[in-house]
């Protein structure tokens, strides 16, 4: 055997790993925010009076949830150009992540909306608030409180899944790891370090989101 682990390359690699991690954080931040906003609209549309809207959203959710993220990514990045839509890798990655995220969070947000007692809405309407205000100020905050832990988990899962966007040459953490190991020939050590970085990021992100939720949501995360 005689293979000794060697981490001597790490000194020069710290800045690359950091910039890769920054890109990963950027990707997940953008797609999480966009995904949650879209899924609130999606969940509302899922409960609208128009059957076409309801079925359209349901079909989209099922299609995304039953196909691998990697295939969705390839379809968007390689497939769409043949329709004349050519996307930058970063844009394609954000689009794929947002679409994927939205499908999962639409279901989560929908469950939250259903969990708010009907009386809350009726009481607010009886007080003379406009329907939009009722939704934004009464129903949505209560729904968010219920679903916050599930949303947190989904965001962390999406961050871990974002590792595959390295396959379309987005310079995020996994991509930098691929480049590093090709240069140092220390594949195992490189991936070990980067795996630990991911682990730290997922633990940190979860803590951050829970702490933020406790601060923002009245009465803390349930």
């Amino acid at each position, binding site marked *: 055997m005689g293979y000794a682990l060697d981490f001597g390359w790490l000194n020069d690699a710290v800045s690359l790993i950091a910039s890769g991690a920054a890109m990963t954080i950027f990707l997940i931040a953008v797609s999480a925010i966009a995904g949650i906003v879209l899924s609130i609209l999606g969940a509302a549309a899922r409960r609208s009076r128009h059957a076409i809207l309801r079925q359209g959203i349901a079909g989209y959710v099922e299609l995304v949830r*039953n*196909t*691998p993220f*990697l295939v969705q990514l390839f379809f968007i990045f*390689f497939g769409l150009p*043949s329709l004349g839509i050519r996307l930058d890798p970063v844009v394609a990655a954000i689009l794929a992540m947002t679409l994927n995220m939205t499908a999962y969070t639409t279901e989560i947000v929908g469950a939250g909306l259903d969990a708010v007692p009907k009386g809350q809405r009726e009481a607010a309407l009886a007080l003379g608030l406009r329907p939009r205000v009722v939704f934004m100020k009464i129903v949505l905050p209560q729904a968010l409180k219920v679903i916050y832990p599930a949303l947190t988990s989904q965001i962390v899962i999406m961050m*871990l899944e974002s590792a595959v966007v390295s396959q379309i040459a987005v310079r995020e953490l*996994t991509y930098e790891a691929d480049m590093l*190991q090709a240069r140092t020939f220390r594949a195992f050590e490189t991936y070990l370090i980067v*795996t630990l970085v991911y682990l730290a990021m997922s633990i940190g992100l979860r803590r951050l989101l829970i702490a933020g939720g406790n601060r923002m949501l009245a009465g803390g995360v349930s």
Partner: protein
Amino acid sequence: MIEFTLWDIIRNLLLAARWTVLLSAVAFAGGTIVGLLILFLRISKRYWMRQFAEYYIGLFQGTPLLMQLFLLFFGLPLLGFRIEPWTAAVLGLTLCASAFLAEIWRGGVQAVPLGQWDAGSSLGLHYLKQLRLIILPQAFAITRAPTVGFLVQLIKSTALTSIIGFEELVRTSNAINNATFEPFTVYGFVALIYFALCFPLTRYAKVLELRALKH
């Protein structure tokens, strides 16, 4: 240059899908066996065993599957094992599945009322018999829907093994795409095949969930 008709594309993709199905099945079976071991540790009375299982689960749920596959693929040869993409794929998915399944089943075991354990011991059954005859059957019954749901997740996860070079559906589609330059058709069909595999299971999980709610 070889001409690919639409039928050639579909036929080759369907042939490759066999490997996706096989890998999913083997990983699910392996994940069940290893997952049961992790479950026993996770609900053990000994603190260090529970702690170990908790770290094991946290490690696999807190890191990307792609990294786990890379570590196995590049790490095991250092320990002197010769490793093929197939071995790394099966091993990686098995370990990952075991962590997720153990965590699902732990929820089931905890949902079984404590009185069931007491009833078991008052019948004179020892720990393993209590588990096998009383606790686990109920725990599995409760967690049937999430277990099927996880199988869907596992099938989708097999797509990642294409990156370490295992010839399953996605890797074959990349090769076909390179030959035909029809990414829209090729990846569209790949998505459809995955959908055809996963959607019935998703539906089945939903049925199980509704059935469980009725009881």
